[in-house]
């Protein structure tokens, strides 16, 4: 069972959360070239190791936030607000 540290509510059971995917992809401006859009919509680094990802506390405070989690061990290394850089995150 993952114990996910919501920045607002503290550590909570994973059942309260919905996964939101890779947090490093940034939505391009509408006039960005197609290649940039392709990368945003489809391509992922998919790292084996620390992964910055979005989670939604959907059955709690309903905030979106960032988590740094190791995809090999499922260890959660850090969490924080969606609009701030996470400590220890590389990108």
């Amino acid at each position, binding site marked *: 069972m993952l114990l996910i540290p919501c920045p607002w509510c503290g550590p909570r059971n994973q059942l309260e959360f919905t*996964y939101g995917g890779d947090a490093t992809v940034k939505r391009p401006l509408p006039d960005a070239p197609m290649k940039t859009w*392709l990368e945003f919509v*489809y*391509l992922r*680094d998919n790292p*084996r190791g620390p*992964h910055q990802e979005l989670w939604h506390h959907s059955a709690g405070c309903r905030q979106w936030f960032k988590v740094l*989690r190791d995809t090999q*061990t*499922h260890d959660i290394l850090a969490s924080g607000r969606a609009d701030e850089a996470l400590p220890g995150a590389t990108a």
Partner: protein
Amino acid sequence: MRYSIFSLARNALSYHEHWPLAWRSPAPKARYDAIIIGGGGHGLATAYYLAKEHALSNIAVLEKSWLGGGNTGRNTTIVRSNYHLDPNAHFYEFSLKLWESLSQELNFNVMYSARGVLNLVHSPADMDASIRRGNAMRLNGIDAKFLTRDEIARWIPNLDCSPEARFPIHGGLLQPRGGTVRHDAVAWGYARAADALGVDVIQQCEVTGIRIDRGAIQGVETTQGFITTTKLGIAVAGHSGHVAAMAGLRLPIESHVLQAMVSEPVKPVLNTVVTSGAVHFYISQSDKGELVMGGDLDFYNSYAQRGNLPAIELVVSACLALFPSFGRLKLMRTWGGIMDMTMDGSPIIAKLPVKGLTMSGGWCYGGFKATPASGWLHAYTIARDEPHPLNAAFTLERFAEGGMIDEKGAGPYAWAH
């Protein structure tokens, strides 16, 4: 040695002490004409068909661990070709046809059992979609039969077909030729057959880097040293993105963990494969008597080959909603495998944008049943340096060109397929 009733009898007389090893364990050579990364069913099948259909003689399969220790040994053994979209239907039907004669082809009993795959239908909308898919299958020459609730209730007495069921059953779409295959035997059979054709199957040899010069493959760095080759095929399922990154490529793939589990073994209680798309659950009974079941992903990126309890609880609750009598059984084992989830839910069997580099991956949930066709078409693509019509649609470029093959219409969310 050819396996037969006579070889069995001969070896019985010597107390089975003189069976030869099924394959060699050679040290890697300095150079190969083609190298396949990944010693699961897909990689071994690719090497086998390269040697058999395309007469390549100097081939190696590199496996970081032991043969079939990844998803080949972790799936729920189901084979089927009940797809709606043409590229998927033709591809998986080709695969099912190869399954039907694979034991004879490999001289190894893979225990293909055409016990049928039944997709349950739980609502009128579900019924429309299933009949439409069944019609599409029949137009593509694939067997499909719609069963009414009463027919299902007579056939599978322990399935709760009552109107009071938590998810009432309205009917089901059956593919009679679908069924199960003994999964380990697939890796062993292909390894033995490839070895007999001279393929070097090298275990405990992890690829740690891919050497590229002027846009062309030069060889691979491994834990057993550098090996030269100009043709490199990737067949590593959940690690596709990890290995492709060694060649500087980003793929439209996320790796997710999918769990499966078995109950304690019991006498025969279920003689087909039952699946439900509405609760996302699938179950069959192995020849050992265990009920083999699985359901959804854990829904977060993972390379861990193990998952968490909420996904298991969902599978078990779906099982009990459909088969209340199975509540008396204990779960014996659970495990996880890493799924290479693509952004449209369909695989990539194609040349990559590095000369000499190909991949067969992006299997999502569907890799095991694709094994023979994946190997056959990957071998064709490597040997001819162009795709076969059956895998021409499964390119990497389809994501840029708008040619997605999205069976569910789920959109670009890897974990939604």
